[in-house]
C-alpha cells in the first residue's frame, strides 16, 4: 500500500455542500504534491481529511497504512504527531516567543527540555530564523511568521507535512523563499509534502506533481515536472 491512499472518498458537509466526490488518489513516500483548484473547489477539505480534521462521508483515507477515517477520536492525536501542518494564517500564539511557539507541541507531549532544545534549534536553523528566536510573532514579518509555522510543523520530524495555502498571504518574492524552505525539507528530511495552493506561478516554477480539483472532483493528476496550462483551473 502507498503512503497515502484515498479510495472512493466522498465528503458532504451537513449543510448539503458536496466538497469531494469519488476522490481516488495515491501518494508515495517522499513525494512533493501540489493540490490546486479555485476557492471552494475542495482542496482544503482534501487536506483536512488527511489529518482527520474532517471525516469522509463515504470511502476510506489511509495515511501510513492507518485507516484515518476509522480512527477513534481519542487516538487522533497519535496521527497528528506524525503530521506537520502549515497554515495560511500561521496560527502562532502571540504571547509566546518564536522558540516557545516551536517548542509548544513538544512541551505538550511532555518531552524533556534538553531534547526540546535540540529539536527546536535544529528546526529553527532549517528555516533560517536563528537570530529571531527570542522575538514575538508580532515583531516578525509575514514571511518570518510562516517560517516559524513551518519550524513548528517540522520540529517533531514528521513523515508528512500538509500545507494549506502557506503562501496565500505573502508576496511573490517571499513566497519563493518559503517554497525553497519547503523544497529543502522535502529533499533533506525526506518528508512527504502535500500543499494546497492556487498560486500558479509557484506550481510552475517548482515543477512537481500537480493534482487539480474542480468542484470536488479530481480533474487531472500531472506527474512531476509538468506545468499547468492557462486553460486548466
Amino acid at each position, binding site marked *: 500500500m502507498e503512503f497515502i491512499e484515498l479510495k472512493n472518498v466522498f465528503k458532504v458537509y451537513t449543510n448539503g455542500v458536496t466538497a469531494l466526490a469519488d476522490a481516488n488518489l495515491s501518494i508515495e513516500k517522499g513525494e512533493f504534491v501540489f493540490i490546486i483548484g479555485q476557492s471552494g473547489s475542495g482542496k482544503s477539505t482534501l487536506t483536512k481529511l488527511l489529518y482527520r480534521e474532517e471525516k469522509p462521508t463515504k470511502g476510506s483515507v489511509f495515511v501510513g497504512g492507518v485507516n484515518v477515517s476509522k480512527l477513534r*477520536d481519542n487516538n487522533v492525536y497519535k496521527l497528528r504527531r*506524525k503530521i506537520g*501542518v502549515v497554515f495560511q494564517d500561521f496560527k502562532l*500564539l502571540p504571547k509566546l516567543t518564536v522558540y516557545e511557539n516551536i517548542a*509548544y507541541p513538544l512541551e505538550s507531549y511532555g518531552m524533556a527540555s534538553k531534547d526540546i532544545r535540540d529539536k527546536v534549534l535544529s528546526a529553527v536553523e532549517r528555516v533560517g530564523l536563528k537570530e529571531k528566536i527570542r522575538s514575538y510573532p508580532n515583531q516578525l514579518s509575514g514571511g518570518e511568521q510562516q517560517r516559524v509555522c513551518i519550524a513548528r510543523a517540522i520540529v517533531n520530524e514528521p513523515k508528512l507535512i500538509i500545507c494549506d495555502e502557506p503562501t496565500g498571504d505573502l508576496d511573490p518574492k517571499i513566497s519563493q523563499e518559503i517554497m525553497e524552505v519547503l523544497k529543502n525539507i522535502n529533499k533533506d528530511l525526506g518528508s512527504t509534502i502535500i500543499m494546497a495552493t492556487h498560486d500558479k506561478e509557484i506550481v510552475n516554477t517548482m515543477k512537481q506533481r500537480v493534482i487539480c480539483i474542480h468542484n470536488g472532483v479530481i480533474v487531472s493528476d500531472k506527474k512531476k515536472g509538468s506545468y499547468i496550462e492557462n486553460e486548466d483551473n
Partner: protein
Amino acid sequence: MKIIRIVNKNFKDAFKSVFRNFSLSMASVSCTAITLILVSIALLVTYNVNSITEDIEDVLTIVAFVDNKATQDEIDAIDNELSKMENILDYQYNTKDKIKENLSADEDLKQILESLDENPIQSTFVVNVKDIREISKTANNIKNLNKVVSVKYGESLVNKLVSMFDVIRNACLIAVVALIIVTAFLIGNTIKITIFSRRNEIAIMRLVGTSNIVIKMPFLIEGAVLGLIGCIIPVLLTVYGYTFLYDFVGGKLFTDLIVLVKPSILIYKVSLVLIIVGVIVGMFGSLRAVRRYLKV
C-alpha cells in the same frame, strides 16, 4: 518524569487562569465557600447528635409499673409482649420484694418501709430502647399493655433537642445538595470562559497532536483549584469557630447530660471532608464544561 512535567505545567496554567478571570473565579469561590460552610454545619451537628444520642441511650430507660393485683400469668403476658416489641434492646423484670430489698440498703427508707403493713412498691419492667428518637412511641405501646399502670421515661428536653438537631441537619443537607448544583454550575461557567479565552491555544494543541487528557487536564485542575480556594474560609471557620463555640458553652448544652464532641479530632476530620468535597465539586463542575465546550 513526563507526567510530572505535564502536571507541573498544567498547575501553573490553572493558577494563572484563576487570576486572569478574577471576578468570575471569585463568584465560584464564594459559592463554594457558602456550600462548604453549610456542609461543615451539617457534619458538626450530625457528629454531635450521634454522640449525644449514644451518651443518653445508656441513661435513658422506660420504667413500666405493673398493677399490684396482676397475677403471675398476666406478668408473663407482659414479658411476652415486650419480647415481641420493636425498638427494645433489653428489659428486666424487678419484683416489688426485690426493689424493697434494694431500697432497704438505705437506713431511713428501711425504717419507713418496715413501718408499713404492706409493701407499697409496685413491680416494674425496666426497658432499654434501641433508638431514643422512638422512645415516646415505645413508651406509649408499653403503657397500652394490660396491667401496666403507668410508664415513666427520661427527660423530654433531650428528646426535643435531638429532634431539633435532626431538623437543622436535614435542612442543611437539602441546602447543601441545592448549593452543590449551583456551585458546580458556576464553576462550570468559569471554566467555560477559560476554554473560550484559550480556544486558539486549544485549536493549536489539537492540531499538533496533544493528547486529549493533556488538553483537558488544565481545566480540571483549574476547577479543583477553585474548589480548593473555596475551602479556605469554611476550614478556618470550622477549626476556629467550632473551638470557640465549644469553649463558649463549656462543652455542654443546658445540662450535664448533653456533652458536645471535643473539637480536637473532629475539626480536622470535618476539614478534611470539606477539602475533599470542595475539590470534587470543582472538578465535577469543570468536567461538565469540558465535556460540553471542549471538542477534541
